[in-house]
């Protein structure tokens, strides 16, 4: 029982307890620095846990909450994948809060600041529970906190559009959590377990005997549809553009980079740990995920082409990149999951950088979000221009940046996977082309010298957002360069996630 066994519990409880403790603080700087300190501690503990797991004999460990073992009491479980993901998400949260701090100070009214940062801490802790939990109903409970906190920070800006975006987001994601709860009810009805490992034994027994066939197919479909709605895969994405388009900078970065991914990690754990790869192969849901991913990749990029508002364009490109991730999951092989995991990391880092840079562009252009008004803005705000360039290139898939290895591994996963090789590779190429089609022209507009608007010099970006952008660029390049060790760790992690 070494020290690092307690880290998952500390990572979860620290932001939760702090969210209650920061009630008395009122001033913006202390609140932001406390929340960032908490997120930094979570990131540091996760990477320490990751390092100690790397060279520990056992691949994963379970942390028993309370004095009763698994099927009776609650349990957390930490392995390589959970450690990497919680570390990456905590870092992205840290940089997004730091990067968007200036906009939050302006948009969130003084009376409501400490409530905003309470919600940021609750978001952090519920995200960590979604990653580390080994119990499906605990996943549901903290999924609700995650949704309420995301809606609360989304509407902290209190303009007409954000409130309408929040209602739309909430209606959609309520349907998602209801389907999730219904599939928990069905799963409990047939297996009698709420924890993932005991449920897997019972489901494996049923799969061989061919018992309860339709309820099992129903539960895995309801789980997937719930996560599709919450992570805005194409047919269920209608809430995303309003939510990400109108929120403040740090909230858009957090929503796009981190909130969407927490549910995908939960679905990955459900598929691998509750059903297992071979049972979910037989159940036949994986091709559906694969085809929905393809649809979302192409349609997301097509719609993003038509957008004039910079933040809505980036939001639609999030829908496309969620499609990549679900395409990777749809292969239902360990390498497919590893490629999807890699793209989760790459997308989290590049997307939050794009949103912070876009926030700075909008501020320099005096608050207007239309791309025509932002022509030549990268000349004025050089650092944000470089950050936007790096983020866009990495999402297109240019080598040396984070997007390239993940798309490359998605293609190799398609080649290794038997069925549907050529469609996947073709659609990957088409959607990469579409990505380029809407990112390159915007980049040209931003960096163009002629007919650049004259921007009033009253907006001076603060130092912390510059630091955040520089660190995100470094992280992006690191992800783009060190892909060989990373993909092997991801593969090893996913093979033991079950």
């Amino acid at each position, binding site marked *: *029982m070494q020290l690092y066994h307690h880290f998952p519990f500390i990572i979860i409880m620290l932001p939760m*307890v702090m969210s209650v403790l920061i009630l008395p603080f009122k001033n913006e700087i202390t609140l932001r620095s406390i929340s960032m300190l908490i997120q930094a501690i979570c990131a540091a503990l996760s990477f320490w846990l990751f390092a100690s797991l790397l060279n520990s004999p056992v691949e994963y460990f379970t942390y028993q909450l309370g004095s009763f073992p698994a099927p009776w009491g609650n349990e957390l479980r930490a392995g390589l994948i959970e450690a990497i993901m919680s570390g990456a998400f905590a870092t992205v949260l840290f940089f997004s809060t730091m990067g968007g701090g200036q906009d939050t100070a302006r948009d969130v009214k003084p009376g409501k600041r400490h409530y905003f940062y309470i919600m940021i801490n609750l978001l952090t802790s519920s995200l960590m529970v979604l990653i580390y939990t080994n119990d499906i109903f605990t996943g549901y*409970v903290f999924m609700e*906190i995650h949704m309420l906190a995301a809606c609360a920070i989304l509407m902290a800006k209190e303009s007409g559009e954000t409130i309408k975006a929040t209602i739309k987001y909430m209606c959609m994601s309520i349907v998602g959590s209801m389907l999730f709860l219904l599939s928990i009810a069905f799963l409990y009805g047939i297996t*009698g*377990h709420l924890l993932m490992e005991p449920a897997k034994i019972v489901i494996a027994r049923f799969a061989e005997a061919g018992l309860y066939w*339709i309820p099992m197919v129903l539960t895995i479909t309801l789980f997937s549809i719930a996560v599709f709605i919450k992570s805005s895969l194409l047919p269920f994405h209608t809430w995303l553009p309003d939510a990400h388009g109108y929120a403040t900078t740090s909230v858009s970065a957090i929503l796009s980079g981190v909130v969407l991914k927490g549910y995908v990690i939960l679905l990955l754990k459900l598929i691998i740990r509750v059903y297992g790869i071979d049972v979910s192969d037989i159940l036949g849901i994986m091709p559906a995920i694969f085809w929905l991913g393809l649809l979302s990749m192409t349609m997301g990029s097509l719609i993003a082409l038509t957008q004039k508002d910079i933040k809505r364009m980036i939001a639609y490109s999030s829908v496309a990149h969620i499609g990549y991730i679900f395409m990777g999951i749809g292969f239902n092989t360990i390498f497919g999951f590893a490629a999807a995991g890699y793209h989760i990391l790459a997308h989290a880092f590049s997307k939050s950088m794009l949103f912070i840079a876009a926030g700075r562009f909008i501020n320099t252009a005096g608050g207007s979000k239309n791309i025509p008004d932002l022509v030549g803005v990268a000349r004025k705000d050089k650092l944000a221009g470089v950050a936007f360039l790096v983020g866009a290139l990495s999402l297109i898939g240019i080598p040396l940046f984070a997007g390239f290895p993940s798309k490359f591994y998605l293609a190799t996963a398609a080649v290794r996977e038997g069925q549907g090789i050529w469609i996947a590779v073709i659609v990957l190429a088409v959607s990469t082309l579409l990505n380029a089609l809407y990112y390159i022209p915007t980049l040209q507009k931003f960096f163009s010298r002629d007919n650049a608007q004259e921007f009033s010099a009253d907006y001076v970006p603060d130092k912390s957002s510059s630091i955040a952008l520089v660190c995100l660029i470094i992280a992006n390049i690191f992800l783009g360069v060190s892909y060989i060790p990373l993909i092997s760790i991801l593969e090893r992690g996913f093979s033991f996630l079950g």
Partner: protein
Amino acid sequence: MPEAKNDKNKFDKFVNWVNADEDISSREEENIADDDNDNRNDKSRDHFDNDSPSICDRLEPEDFHMGVVDEEFDYSEMFGDDSGRIDQDQAAALAENSARRVVLRKGVRDRFRTTQVFFTLVSVLLTIGIVGVLLLALSQMPQFGDPASPTNNEVYERYVQRGVEDTGATNIVAAIILDYRAFDTLGEAFVLFTALIGVIMLVRTSCGSQFILVERTQPLMLRFMIMLISPFILIYGIYILLNGHLTPGGGFSGGAILGSALSLYAISFGAQKVRTLLSFKTLLISISIALLFYAIVKGYSFVIGASGLSSGIPLGTPGNLFSGGLIVPLNISVGIVVAFTVYGLYALFSEGEV
């Protein structure tokens, strides 16, 4: 009640607005006018952004409503300094504006109609399909109430057979909630906390409580009856709360009863009386203390349990009041969180101010 008049004619009024050309006086139009102007210079439509202190002074008690005063659209700026005189260019701008709006409305109306029909069709088919699939899956599920169904496995047997000796509580449901699966209830208390903070962010007006609301004194009969009943409700709530581990009830239902007793008292005797006892600050502080108590005490027993030690908390003899080990204090803290959240929600929704 505006929605009370059936939606039909309200919607017709709206449809005539959509078709009407000159008459732009209806309320929806006011909002549209709001949106056009604000959107043009693309400041997001912040009705509440002018948080200059003056807004609180202009408030008179009787129209102290949630944000309605901030939202007032001042026509004088739009139509020149006094509303009578409109100079030429403003009139021209207005005419051009309404002409463009006519063209726009036709496009909007058709698009709206098609999406309406399409949307209803999709959701009808969707729900019938889902219910059909669910009933199909249900037909394969184990029978209702038969003892041999898979849910009666070793998990259920241990909860019933060794529930009392493990946790010392005779009400097994309370034992599960507060001892076997206490992490869910921790999440539960934090869901309530998040909802309360979310509602505070949304509904609480920023003018603080220096406004003494004009209290409508309730009829004597109501006040007298409430004076008679509320002690019994409080005793009943406290009984349910404290005996959560012995009889059905526990933190949630006991807290809800106490919360509704507080709200009942606030309804009849005016929120001001309750506010002297339980101001906004004490409400938040007591909820935080209860949450911290739960998190720290239960966190201690999680960490001890995880590292295999036995937490030295005596379980007491099952059956009497202080017998459930940690269950009774946890019940009290969850009860406090639920009671004050319920009262807070009542106060926020009724006056926008706890």
